[in-house]
């Protein structure tokens, strides 16, 4: 039984994550460059937006802070869509190693700030190593 672990991470945490996985004997993985947005909608200035008192809503935000909202207004856009560059690591492991890998990725990547990323675990039906024709667990370890 194999599972695929998909982790969406900060760009600068890929190196440490790969080192950690290497130490566990998991050298094989797929790395993709992706863009993402989270609950804050890609607005990395969310914290600044929150600091502005509600009564100054429109004016002071626009004058004092460059936020996606003020950027959109000054560029006559109706609604901005902002993306944050991320890296996606996909690694297929036997289900017995799942918790170990998830714990490692979490401990390496946790900074406590928004944008640390997500880990998804999904089942893999079949796996074949093309070179040898091995199937199942043999094909990924």
């Amino acid at each position, binding site marked *: 039984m194999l599972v695929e672990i998909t982790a969406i991470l900060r760009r600068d945490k890929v190196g440490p994550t790969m080192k950690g996985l290497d130490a566990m004997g998991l050298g094989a993985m797929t790395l993709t460059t*992706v863009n993402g*947005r989270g609950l804050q909608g890609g607005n990395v200035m969310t914290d600044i937006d929150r600091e502005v008192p509600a009564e100054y809503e429109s004016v002071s935000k626009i004058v004092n802070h460059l936020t996606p909202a003020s950027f959109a207004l000054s560029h006559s856009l109706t609604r901005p869509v902002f993306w944050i560059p991320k890296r996606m690591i996909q690694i297929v492991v036997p289900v017995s190693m799942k918790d170990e890998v998830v714990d490692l990725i*979490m401990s390496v990547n*946790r900074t406590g700030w928004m944008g640390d990323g*997500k*880990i*998804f675990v*999904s089942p893999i039906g079949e796996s074949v190593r093309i070179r040898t024709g091995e199937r199942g667990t043999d094909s990924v370890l």
Partner: protein
Amino acid sequence: MMKMVRAIVRPEKENDVVLALEAKGFPALTKTHVFGRGKQKGITVGPIHYDELPKVMLMIVTEEESVPVIVDVIQKAAFVGYEGDGKIFVSPVTESYTIRTGAKAE
């Protein structure tokens, strides 16, 4: 049970889809630029054949109950009516973790 919805849509429809999803309360998603072709095997314009057409893949992981809503929203927002509008795939996700808090959802 959580589900991963992967939608392959026209690049020019990306903004419409994202804003439509956000309006329905699904702001969080991941996008990748991909290349693909469909059962028409690409496009032939005169003597030139294009078989790697640029697309945008949007990936959303969500609760099972939200899947019909999301699929519906994407289908309406990405619709043009010609070949190349794209596909939506739904696959199972057994666990999902938020790294910042360590919270686990199943």
